[in-house]
Every structure is written in structure tokens, then in C-alpha cells.
């Protein structure tokens, strides 16, 4: 297919090398979720991973973050092998990861405080990134006072404040309504444009992946492998209804069709045995 346009650097930021993971169940059954997955991501690249629920995409993300361990394979950041979690690879969770006992700005300062950065620097960084996600008015609000979309913007600001090498986003907008999600997509693209952070974004929503990424990796739950990769070399913001997108989307859906059927069959079988 089309090669991605080369606006990001040529240095490799993240390498996933032959990572495998098998889940064992109590009834001595096992499920190979990831089977020797390898991915290379360049500095500044925005990569999405799509696949139906249960295809192991969140597991892969957690392994990359160091929050879960793989059975075999390696995670390398800038060529360095990583085993445990660290602030260089920050996860933005689907929801509920902000601390309700802290205000918006205290949440954003949290990681900096842990890192022992002086208070005035913490506040500077916090206000800069809170402004970037357009929440300056709410800097002193508590989390329960925010809407779902605002919470995810705080989570993004909190991650950016720590200046990570990679942002790992685990279906961060899945719990939001469509309009809010569109607004957040645009904000995220602007933030990516401004900061040139490397982003790995996991979603089951093909439209979302088409709107955001430079590159899209389709995972198959049946094989535990990468089914196919698509480069989406279109200017952003993109119109997901456009004909170019429709062409790519049709190919992706075709790839995914048998997997969706597989997942459905699997689920019915599981329900039947229960």
C-alpha cells in the first residue's frame, strides 16, 4: 500500500519483538491471545491497533506499558529493553484513573511530585498542559465535578506533564458520546501535532482508528497475530465519510469479518457451556 509520509523522525521509538501471551483458565483450557507479535513504531508516529473485543489488544498495550508480563518476547524503547512499568510509557486508561481526592491541577502534578520536581516547576507544567487541553477554568475543580470528556482531557494532560516517550491509549474515548468523542479526536490530533509524541492507540472502533492514526494495525483474535497493516496517508482532520476512507474501511471490514464471526461463535459456545 501507500507508505506513510515521512513527517516523523526515522529513529525507532518502540519495538515489540515476538511477544507472546497465553491465558490459562481454571478448567485447564488455554487461550493464545498474542502469538509472536512484532511491531516497530517510529518516533512521533501515531499508530492505532484495532480488533474486536477479546483480541488481546489491551493485553498487548499493558505488556508494552509493563503493567502485565509477557510469556516471551521483548519490549524495547529506543533500543533499550524494558521489563517494568515506568513514566516513559504512560497509559491513558478507558476511565476512572484520575484521583478523586485531588483537584485537576493536583492530579496533573501528581507524577511530577513523585519524581521530586520542585513545586513551582510542577505548577508551571501543570498549568501549561491544563491549558493545552483547554481546562484552565477547571484547574481547581475536583474530579466528580467534571464530565466524562473533561476527565479524559485531564488524564491526557496528566500524562503529557510527565513528558513520556510514548503515550499508550487504551480505548480512552470508548465511554464517551459521539459528539464529545469527535471533539476529543480533534484535540488529540492538535496535541499530537504540537508535541510530536509517539502515540499507540488501541480501539475496537474502526472509524476512530481511521480518523486518528498514521498507521493502523489489525489484530486477529483467532490467530493472536497481526492480520494486516494499513497506512493511512491522508491529511488530518479527516472526514470518515470520504471516499478514500471508505475504500480502506471496506478492506478492513473484509479482513475483520471472519474474525468477528469467530468471536461471535466463541462467545455463543462459551455461553452454551456455562
Amino acid at each position: 500500500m501507500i507508505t506513510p509520509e515521512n513527517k516523523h523522525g526515522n529513529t525507532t521509538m518502540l519495538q515489540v519483538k515476538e511477544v507472546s501471551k497465553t491465558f490459562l483458565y481454571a478448567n485447564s483450557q488455554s487461550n493464545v491471545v498474542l502469538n509472536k507479535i512484532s511491531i516497530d513504531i517510529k518516533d512521533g508516529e501515531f499508530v492505532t491497533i484495532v480488533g474486536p473485543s477479546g483480541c488481546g489488544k489491551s493485553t498487548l498495550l499493558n505488556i508494552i506499558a509493563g503493567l502485565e508480563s509477557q510469556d516471551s518476547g521483548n519490549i524495547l524503547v529506543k533500543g533499550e529493553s524494558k521489563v517494568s512499568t515506568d513514566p516513559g510509557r504512560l497509559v491513558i486508561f478507558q476511565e476512572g484513573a484520575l484521583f478523586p481526592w485531588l483537584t485537576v491541577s493536583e492530579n496533573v502534578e501528581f507524577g511530577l511530585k513523585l519524581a521530586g520536581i520542585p513545586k513551582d516547576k510542577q505548577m508551571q507544567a501543570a498549568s501549561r498542559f491544563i491549558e493545552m487541553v483547554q481546562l484552565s477554568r477547571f484547574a481547581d475543580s475536583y474530579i466528580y465535578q467534571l464530565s466524562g470528556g473533561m476527565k479524559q482531557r485531564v488524564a491526557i494532560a496528566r500524562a503529557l506533564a510527565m513528558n513520556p516517550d510514548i503515550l499508550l491509549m487504551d480505548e480512552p474515548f470508548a465511554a464517551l458520546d459521539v459528539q464529545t468523542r469527535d471533539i476529543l479526536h480533534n484535540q488529540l490530533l492538535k496535541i499530537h501535532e504540537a508535541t510530536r509524541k509517539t502515540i499507540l492507540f488501541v480501539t475496537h472502533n474502526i472509524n476512530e482508528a481511521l480518523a486518528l492514526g498514521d498507521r493502523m494495525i489489525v489484530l486477529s483474535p483467532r490467530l493472536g497475530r497481526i492480520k494486516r497493516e494499513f497506512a493511512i496517508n491522508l491529511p488530518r482532520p479527516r472526514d470518515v465519510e470520504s471516499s478514500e476512507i471508505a475504500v480502506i474501511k471496506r478492506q478492513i471490514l473484509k479482513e475483520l469479518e471472519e474474525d468477528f464471526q469467530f468471536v461471535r461463535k466463541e462467545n455463543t459456545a462459551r455461553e452454551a457451556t456455562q
Partner: protein
Amino acid sequence: MLEKKIQPEKRRSKSRFDVTDAANIALFLAAFVGMWQMVFLLGIWPESSLPSPATVVGAIGNLTTNYSLPIGIGVTLLRLIAGFVISIGIGVGVGLAMVKFRGFGKTMSSFAVGLLTFPSIAWVPFAILLIGFNDFGILFVVVMASVFSVMITTYSSIRNIPPIYLRAASNMGAKGFGLFQHVMIPAATPSLILGIRQAWSFAWHALIGAEILITTLYGLGHVLNVGREFGFMEDVIASMITIFVIGIVFDRVLFAKVEERVRSRWGLDQHSE
């Protein structure tokens, strides 16, 4: 845009003490005292068994001017605070150890639940024989009454922290004491406060009981007991009223306020309205 309307902290003020509340309380008190006065006037019991409200007010005055009540309140509160502080120290310490060592936690929690339902008064004979008729005997009963509640609360509050907080925090580099101090303690606070409030009421029950049974020279339980021994019902009722008021002041004013503040800040009251 996306901003949902934010109501300022004003909505909190309605739970504060206001005029309607005060009027309701005054009305309730008036009705209670009125009924008491009526029963008194019916003359069912002799005056020595059921004195009038006025006599009891006089007794409170007397007990205050001869310092029995002020000293009693002071000594009782000192014992309460000392016992409660010891309970929290031991309870939180053991509770944390229970979280840290899983096998110990499992065993200890069933053991502690058993002791939680154990009537605190039943510790008194044990305390008298082991320690004697003194302050330490009383403290022992108070601690035994409340420490298991603190222990269980610490253990369960920490174990019930939503794992996402711990994952997010460790992802941002929190570990060891930092994770404990900045994440586990605040995340566990709402349920810790509930448990500590319960432990406080256990300690309070046990303390008055122990003061009545372990006769030392001072304390509200002692004043109550002396009233009984000399047959001064007005003194008995006067100490009961004092005990009641102390209970209300601590629970409503201290614990309820702290709990309310924590619940509102954590956003835990949002679904109830």
C-alpha cells in the same frame, strides 16, 4: 462546549446547622421534657425514683459546682482519647501487616471478626484480674473493644482500593512508601473514616461500662455509679445526660463533619441526590 454546569460548593451549606433544624430540635426537646414533667406529675413513681426535670437541672448545677461533672468529663475524655489513640496505633499497624502478609491477613481477619462481636463488658473481669482496679484496666477494656474494628477496617479499606488507582500510580512511577502515602491512604480514606467512627462508638460504650464496673475515683461512669449507690436518681440522670451529650457532640460535630467533607470531595454523594 463539553463543560457541564458546575454548581459551586453552596449546595453543601444546606447540610450545615440552620434555623429550621434548630427549631425542630427545640420542639423535640420541649415535647420530651413536657412528657417527662407530665409523667412526674402523675405521681406513678415516688420522687426519689423519678425526679422532675427541674430537679435534674438542679443536680447538673450542683455536680458542676462541686466539680464532680467537670472532673468526670475531663478524666473520661482523657481515658477515651488515650484508649482510642492506642487502638488506632495498634489497629492500623496490624491491619497493614495483614495486607502485607496474605496468610496472616486471612487468619487474623476471621479471628478479629470473632472478637469484633465479642461483648466488650465481658473483658472486664479479665482486665480486673490481669491488671487490677485502675486506669490501665479501663484502658485495656477500651482498647480491646475498638482495636479489632480498626484492624478490620484498615485491612478491608486497603484491599478494596480500586486497582485502577494503583495501576495508574505505579505507571507514573509510584512505589513503596510513596504509593502508600500518596495513593493507598487517600484512596482508602472514605471507608477508613466509617470504620474509625464505628470503633469510636465501640470504645465509648466500653469505657462507660468499664468505669462503672472498675471503680476508680473519677470518671463519668464513676459519678453514675456513686449516684446509684446513694440512691440519688437526679445524679444518675444528670450523668446520663452528660454521656449522651458527649456522644452526640463527637459523632455529629466531629465525625459527621469530617465524613461529609471527605464524601463531598471524593464525589461520593453524587448519586444520592
